[in-house]
Structure formats: C-alpha cells, structure tokens
C-alpha cells in the first residue's frame, strides 16, 4: 500500500476525522474524544510508519499496532478502512449486531486487530508478548501500543512497563495519548498521572514529549522510537481531547457521547 508523506497524512486526518464523526453518529453511541485526540498519531502509523499489508494481516513479520485504550477504536477502524482492510461502507456498521466492528476491538473478529481490549490497562502487556516473541524468533518487527493518560491509572500498565524495561524490549514503542481527560473529568482532578515523562523515564524507558497534533513531531518521534536500541521507547503525546471539533475539545462530557444529527453536521463543517 502507498506510504504517505507527513503533509499527505495531515490531509488524511481530515478524512479520518470525518469517518469518526459519521460512524459514531450512525451508531448513536461511542467515544469521540479519544479518537479525535489520537487521529494524527494513528494516521501516521497506518499510512507511514507501520510495515503492514492489509491483504496479509497475519504476516509474521508485520509491525503490530495494539490499541490499549480500546474505546478509541473508531480512529483505528477509520484508518484500517482507508488502508483497505475492509470496505469503507462497513464503517457504518460500527456497534451494530453481527458487525465485525465491535464497540471495542476484538481479536479474531476483524483481521488486523491484534488484541481484544476495552478493559483498560492490558494492551501494554500483550504488546510485551509480541515484542518478546519477535526477539525469540529473531524477527525485525516493531510493536506500537497506544495508551491513554487516564488508562495508565491501571496498575497492570506499570507491571508491564517494568517488564519491558527489565527485558530491554527495544522493539516496543508506547505512545501515551495525554489528552488530560478521563471519563469522570480531568485526570489532574480524578487521579493525577503526571509528571508523565519523568515516570516513564524512572521506569527505564527512553522518553520524548511531543505535541501529538504536530505531524512532523509525530513522524520524528516515531522514527526516533524505531531507531532506539537497548530500552523500550515512550512517546508522551500532548493532545487535545476532541481535537478538530471545537465544541468537543477539552470537554470531559464528550468522552463517551455520540453526536446527534445537528452536532454531526456542525462537526463535519468544522473538519471540512
């Protein structure tokens, strides 16, 4: 599949954001905030940085992408459809009975989904396993995992962070989508997980901090992560929850509510 430049990825983000709004509006439920905050990161992965073939999703040498914060799966479905994993028309079946597009990712239902997530805090461990197996088998793939700054409340994440550093899993790149908001409110008020870069460094991870909506910065950080050796790599991506739709931005109430017809129209007009 074609590899897009950073500028082309910026343009693709508009398409992805439109899909997110449209599929959530069609479903009538879901989580727009965390999909919109990670649109640049996930788009950069699927259209440039992941080595993957939508027609051979089980290729043992593929790069892996695991969406640990599974509720943000609309952004992944949008990118997968645009890459050709499944027809774009299928996005309209999100959260419907008999659909392959489950409300949270389900491994085995939709080719290309690497892990069943949605019960938060588990994706980094599963990513550890893929990274470890790659080392055992001498395969050169990388494993990317996306976490949330609310999700990392979960203790298992820190067990997994210890394990990855202890075993120097340098084929593992974690991206913390730091959008500052979890379901009940701002992470600073619910359970403060800052300072994020210092925490990951203390756990033995090489860590960079970027503007998660700056495509050039996202590209540079992912390149740095792929090249880094001898420890796992963490990208703390500072993002805006609901990015791209003004009335959703930085609003905790848009964590898990789908837009109605009017809101959908306003959102699409803003995205352009």
């Amino acid at each position, binding site marked *: 599949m074609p590899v897009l430049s950073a500028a082309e990825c910026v343009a693709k983000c508009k398409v992805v954001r439109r899909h997110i709004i449209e599929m959530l509006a069609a479903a009538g439920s879901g989580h727009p905030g965390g999909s919109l905050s990670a649109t640049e990161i996930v788009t950069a992965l699927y259209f440039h940085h992941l080595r993957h073939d939508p027609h051979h999703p089980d290729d*043992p040498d593929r790069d892996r992408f695991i969406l640990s914060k599974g509720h943000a799966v609309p952004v992944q479905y949008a990118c997968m459809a645009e890459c050709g994993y499944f027809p774009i028309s299928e996005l309209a079946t999100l959260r419907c009975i008999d659909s392959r597009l489950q409300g949270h990712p*389900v*491994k*085995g239902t939709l080719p290309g989904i*690497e*892990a*069943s*997530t*949605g*019960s938060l*805090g*588990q994706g*980094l*461990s*599963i*990513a*550890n*396993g*893929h*990274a*470890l*197996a*790659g080392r*055992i*088998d001498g395969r050169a793939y990388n494993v990317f995992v996306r976490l949330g700054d609310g999700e990392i409340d979960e*203790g*298992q994440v820190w*067990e*997994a962070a*210890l*394990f990855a550093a*202890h*075993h120097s899993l340098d084929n593992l790149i974690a991206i913390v989508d730091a959008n500052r908001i979890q379901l009940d409110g701002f992470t600073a008020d619910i359970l403060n997980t800052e300072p994020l870069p210092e925490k990951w460094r203390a756990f033995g991870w090489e860590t960079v901090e970027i503007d998660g909506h700056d495509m050039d910065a996202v590209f540079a950080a992912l390149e740095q992560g792929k090249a880094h050796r001898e420890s796992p790599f963490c990208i703390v991506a500072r993002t805006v929850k609901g990015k791209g739709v003004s009335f959703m931005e930085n609003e905790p109430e848009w964590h898990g509510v789908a837009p109605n017809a009017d809101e959908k129209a306003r959102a699409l007009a803003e995205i352009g």
Partner: protein
Amino acid sequence: MGERKLGRATRDAYGDALVELANTRDDVVVFDADLAKSTRTGKFGALRPERFFDAGICEANMVGTAAGVAACGKTVFVSTFSAFLMCKAFDQLRMAVAYPRENVKMVTTHGGITLGQDGASQMSVEDFALALGLPGVTVIHPADDPSAKQLILQAAATDGPVYFRLGREKAPLVYEADHEVRIGRAEVLSDGRDVTLVANGMLLAASLDAAEQLAGEGVEARVIDVHTLRPIDRETLGAAATETGAMVVAEEHLTVAGLGSVVAQTVAETCPVPMEFVGLHETYAESGQPAELLRKYGLTADDVLAAARRVLARKG
C-alpha cells in the same frame, strides 16, 4: 482405609512434563510469577533459559505478556499458585486468553486447601468456579502424578487455552504408570451399580476408600474420576446416573460452582437422581497439616461414606 500408596505431588509431574517439552519442542515458552521453585517451572528454565521468563510478582502482566507470545504462534505455559492466577489475573485471562482463544496453558499449583500451613490466603477454594467462568477453556484437575503428566502433555499437544489445578502435597497413587487417561474422558475406576461416587484430585482416593468400605457392607459403588470438568463427559455421567440411581460428588473446592455443580447440571440434563455433595460449604480454610485440614473441613473418606449413606437413604 487410607492404606493407598503415596505417589509424588502432581506439581512434580508438571516439572517432568516441562523437562520433556524442553527437550522435544522448540515452540514452548514458560512464564512464572516468582514461584518457579514451588511450581517446578524452574526445571524448564534451567534447560531453556531463552524461553523461560520469570515475570516477577506481576500476575496480570504475566498473563497478558503470555497471551501476546501465544498470539505469535507459541505454546505458552503460565504458572503460579492456583489462587493467585485465578484471583489476581482473572480479567487478563478473560480478555487476553479466553476471549481470543490463545494457546495458553494455565498450569497452577498449590490448589485447594491441602497446601496446609501457609493458610487461607494461599489456598484456592474458588478456582474452578472462576475457570469455568471462562468460556471455551478446558478445565482439568488430575488426581495423581501419572495421570497429571499425561494430561499436561496432551494439553501441550492441543491448541487452545487449558486450566490445570495441581497440588503441593504428595498424592495417593490411583493409576498405574501405563494406564492411559484422556482429556475429556472420565475414568470409571470401579463399576458398581448401587451408587456413584464422582470425584477428582485428592478426593478421588478418598472416594475409592469409601467405596471399599461400602463394599464391605454389600453396597457396590461406581467410582468415577472426572479429572476434566470441561468438557464434561456427559455419556459416562449420564450412564452412571441411569444405572446407579444415586450420586455423590466430592471435591476440594467450594460446593458451589465447581465439580459438583457441573456434574449436577449434567445429571439434571440426562437422568436426574438424588445427589449429595462433599466439599467446602461457604467457608475459607486455615493453617494446619493437610490431613488435619481435610478432616476439619469434611473432605475425608468418612465424609464421602456418610454422603453415600445419605444419598442411598434418599434413593430408597
């Protein structure tokens, strides 16, 4: 009663099975959570350090990591005490192992209350209830060393998630070394027609002892080893219910949601008969010697015998 020869602990059979797998299979990866000496996974680690990972005291991460390795085509074993795997990592078993049906063998040791003096925090009285709450997971509790090794090697040769509860203590020998057991096939150990005694694990020998006692009173008991709780052997259990008309189920587990419940459901669906249940009734146990614990909590041959008499009275 109680004259049965002691074999080794079923956890030692696991150690032997792992040594065999270390020497014959390149796709086997083993994880432990800082109990490798106790579970015997250390034997694999000594032979195949590149495929053995001590995850530290992190059961949740161990299970998730094991699932990721399994997703890449490996046959993965995860081990710790039964209580710690099932109670501490249950959601990881649900999301990362059972739901995607990863090829993870959950082989746990120190199951039940017979680990003894360490007390209730280390004991699993609810592990079958939890394991049976994972759809599609095979659930096995072997009674002795020879059958445990066979069943573990069969599980290693089959794709899909399997839960094993093994024991800390030396287990009474039930099977000859050359007796073949199969996952999913209950073993009829004595073929009586008056009452059926169903058991597994440590309670199997107790049930055989109870059957000998009953034989002395002219009552012929059929004793069945249901080492595999899922898939349950409907045919053998249905035939036993039909032909004996009364049944006792004995297990080292809460009497709810374990072997007794599975067998009762099976019997209800095939041929309902009076049943009695031997197990832990709404309680945790405590520190003590294994034999003392079995006596105090009602898990001896005498308890099976008493249950058999009750069910025979109900049978009329």
